[in-house]
C-alpha cells in the first residue's frame, strides 16, 4: 500500500501591524503579508491622525497658524514653528533682528537633540531593549532640554514660541548658564550611551545590513534628513540652503556608508554632537538687542507665494504658502518629511523578518502628527 502524499501547501498570511501596536510610533498601520517570519509584501496605511491641518490653517490668521505647526512634529515643535515663520517672512519680506536669529537657532538645535534622543531611544526600544532602559536614559536628557524650553516660553511640547518677525519673548535670565551647563555635560552622556550600545553585538547583528537604502534610491524617493544622510548623501539644508544664521556656523554633516539601519542610528547620534557644537557657537555669538520685529495681530501677508524649507530633525520640512493678501493663508502646504520618508518603507521591508520591520520603521523616525497632519 503506497499512498502518494499530497505536497504540503503553504500560504502567506496577513498581519495588521497597527494602528494599535507597541512600536508603530502612534497610529500607524502596516499590512504585512507574511510567509512564516518573512515579509512578502507590506502596505503602509495611515491617516488615523489626520486633522486637516492644511485646511484648518486656511481658516486661521497668519499669526494663529504658528500654533498649528506646533502640533505637526510634536517632538520638535520649534523646528516646525521656525519653518512656517521662515516661509511667512520670505513671503512678506520681514527682517528679523540678529538676536532673534540666534535664539531661533538655539531653539531649533535644542529641539533637534531632543527629537533625536527620542528617535534613538524609541528605536532601541523597538529593537527589544524591552524594559525601556535606553529609552529612559534618553528621556532623562531630553527632560533637561524640555526644562530649558519651559524656562524660555513656559511650555514643554507645544511651544508657540517663534513668531513672525522674531520670537515671542526674550531668553530668561538663567537661561544661558543653564544652557552652558547642559552643553558641558551632554557630550559625556552621549559618549556614555555610545558605550552602552554602539558596539553591542546584538545591536550590530540586528542593525547592520538591515533595511539598506542605497543613495540613488534615497534621492529618487525624496527621502530627507538623517535617513538620507545615513545613505551617504551629504545633503543638509543647513549647509546646502542655509537659512537663519547657519551660514556663519561651523559644523560637520555626518553621513553613513551603507545606508542601513545602523548608519541611520549613528548619523543621529553624531548629529547630536554637531548640534552641541552649533549651540556652543550660537551662544558664544549671541548678540544683545531686540528679539522681535513687531508684527500686528492683524498681520496680512502680501499676495504671492513662497516656499521655505529647513532641516528639521526628521528631514526637509517645507512650507509652501500662497497668500491672497488677506488675514489668513490661501494655501498652506506642509512638506512633511516623515510622510515622504515613508514612501521607501515598502522597499526596505520586503524580504525582511517581522522583527526587522519595527527596527527599520524605528530607524526612519516617523512621527504620526506629521505624517497624517
Amino acid at each position, binding site marked *: 500500500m503506497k499512498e502518494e502524499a499530497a505536497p504540503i501547501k503553504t500560504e502567506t*498570511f*496577513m*498581519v495588521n501591524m497597527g494602528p494599535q*501596536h*507597541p*512600536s508603530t510610533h502612534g497610529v500607524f498601520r502596516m499590512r504585512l503579508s*507574511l510567509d*512564516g*517570519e518573512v515579509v*512578502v*509584501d507590506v502596505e503602509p496605511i495611515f491617516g488615523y491622525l489626520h486633522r486637516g491641518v492644511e485646511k484648518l490653517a486656511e481658516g486661521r490668521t497668519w499669526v494663529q497658524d504658528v500654533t498649528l505647526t506646533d502640533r505637526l512634529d510634536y517632538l520638535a515643535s520649534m523646528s516646525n514653528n521656525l519653518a512656517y515663520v521662515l516661509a511667512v517672512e520670505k513671503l512678506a519680506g520681514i527682517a528679523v533682528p540678529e538676536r532673534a536669529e540666534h535664539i531661533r537657532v538655539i531653539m531649533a538645535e535644542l529641539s533637534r537633540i531632543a527629537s533625536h534622543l527620542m528617535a534613538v531611544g524609541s528605536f*532601541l*526600544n*523597538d*529593537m*527589544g*531593549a*524591552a*524594559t*525601556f*532602559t535606553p529609552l*529612559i*536614559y534618553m528621556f*532623562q536628557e531630553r527632560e533637561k532640554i524640555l526644562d530649558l524650553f519651559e524656562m524660555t516660553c513656559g511650555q514643554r511640547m507645544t511651544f508657540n514660541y517663534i513668531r513672525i518677525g522674531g520670537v515671542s519673548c526674550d531668553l530668561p535670565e538663567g537661561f544661558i548658564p543653564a544652557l552652558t551647563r547642559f552643553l558641558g555635560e551632554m557630550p559625556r552622556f552621549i559618549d556614555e550611551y555610545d558605550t552602552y*550600545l554602539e558596539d*553591542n*553585538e*546584538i*545591536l*550590530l*547583528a*540586528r542593525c*547592520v*545590513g*538591515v533595511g*539598506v537604502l542605497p543613495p540613488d534610491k534615497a534621492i529618487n524617493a525624496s527621502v530627507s534628513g538623517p535617513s538620507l544622510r545615513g545613505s551617504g548623501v551629504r545633503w543638509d539644508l543647513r549647509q546646502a540652503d542655509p537659512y537663519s544664521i547657519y551660514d556663519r556656523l561651523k559644523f560637520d554633516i555626518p553621513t553613513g556608508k551603507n545606508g542601513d539601519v545602523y548608519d541611520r542610528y549613528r548619523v543621529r547620534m553624531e548629529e547630536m554632537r554637531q548640534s552641541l557644537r552649533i549651540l556652543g557657537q550660537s551662544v558664544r555669538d549671541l548678540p544683545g538687542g531686540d528679539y522681535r520685529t513687531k508684527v500686528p495681530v492683524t498681520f496680512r501677508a502680501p499676495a504671492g507665494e513662497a516656499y521655505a524649507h529647513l532641516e528639521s530633525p526628521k528631514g526637509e520640512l517645507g512650507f509652501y504658502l500662497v497668500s491672497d493678501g488677506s488675514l489668513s493663508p490661501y494655501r498652506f502646504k506642509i512638506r512633511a518629511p516623515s510622510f515622504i520618508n515613508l514612501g521607501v518603507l*515598502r*522597499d*526596505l*521591508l*520586503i*524580504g*525582511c*523578518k*517581522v*522583527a*526587522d*520591520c*519595527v527596527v527599520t520603521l524605528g530607524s526612519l523616525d516617523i512621527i504620526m502628527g506629521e505624517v497624517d497632519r
Partner: protein
Amino acid sequence: MSFWDYIKDLSNIARRVAEWTGGEWWVYGLLGLLALLLFLVPSLLALIWIERKVFGRLQVRYGPNRAGPFGLLQPVADAIKVMTKEDVAPARGDRLLFRLAPALAFMPAMAIFAAIPFTRNMAVNLDIGVLYIIAVGSLGVIAVFMAGWASNNKYSLLGAMRAVAQTVSYELPLVLSVLAIVLATGSLSLVKIVEYQTVPLLLLQPLTFFIFVVAALAELNRTPFDIMEADSEIVAGYHTEYSGMSFSLFYLAEYTHALAVSALIATMFLGGWKPDVGIPWLWLIVKIYLVFLVFSWIRGTLPRLRVDQLMGFAWKFLFPLALINILIVAIEVQALEGFPGWLALVNIPVAAIILIGMARLFRFGRVTAPARAPERG
C-alpha cells in the same frame, strides 16, 4: 533536639509531625507541598518586586515605592488588580485549550522545585533528579504553544511558533551542559551534585556554566532571547489575548520558571546549601536571589536578537561549544580519575580561550539583500 536544629533543618519538623501522625507517606507529601508554597509564593512576590526595583534603579528612577514600605506590597496590589479584571477569551478561539494553557504553564515550573534540594535532608533525594528537571522543565513549551494556538490570533501563533523553535534549539546545549556536570560528579542526583562541590562547579567548569546560563536564559525567554513574547514586534506573543487572572498565571509561571532556573544554577554551580554553616537553606535562597538579580540586570540592559540569529546562535555557537565542553570534561575525568579542585585554575583560562576563540569565529547571521518589491496587484 534543640530549636536550632529544627531551624537548621526544617525536615526535622516534618519528621516530627510525621511521627506524630503515624508516618504516613501522604503526610510527608502534604508537608512538602506546604513548605514549597511557603517558599514559592513569597519568593514570587519578592522576585517581581526585585525585578521591577532593579529595572527602576538601572533606569535612574525609583521603581515601585508607593504600595507599602519600599513598594514591597506592589506585587500584592498588582495581584488584586489582576484578579478583579475581566478575563476575556477570544470568541473564535479554542475555549478549552485557552483556559487550560495557563494552568499547564504554571505546573511544570512549580514541579521543578520538587527535586531541588534545600539541604541534605530537605529534599526528595531523587536519583534521577537532573533528568526529572530537564524533562519537566521543557513541558512548559507545550502550554505556550497551546496558548498561541488557542488564541486564534496571528501574533500569538507567531509567538508560539517562535517559542517552539527556540525551546527545541536551546534544549540541546542545555542538556549537553548538564551532561558535563553529570560526567564530573558521576551522579544524576542533585543532592550528590551539591555534595560533590567542595569547590563550586562554577569555578571547576566555567564553560559549562556559561552554556547553561545562556541556554537557560533562552528557555526562560528573557532578553536577549525573549522573541516569543517580543512586545515590540508581536505585541506579547503567545499571551497577547490573555487578560486578568489567566494572564497573571502566565506571568507567574514565567517568574516561577525563573526562580526554578535560578535555584538550579545555585544548586548545580554555586554549591547549593554550602557552605554548610548557619542555616544552610538560607544560603541557597540567598544564592537563588543573587542569580536572579543578575538575570534582571541582563534583562534590563540588552536588546533582543532576531529569530534567525537566535537559532543560529544556538546551533552554530552554543551547540558546538557544548560538544567541546563535554570532550574536555570527559578527557579530564578520564585522565585525572576524579575532578580535583585545582583543576579550576586550568579550566578558567581554558574556558576563556575557547570562548574568545569561538566568539571570534562566530558571526550572527545577516539578512540577505531584500527581495525586490512585487508589483502591486
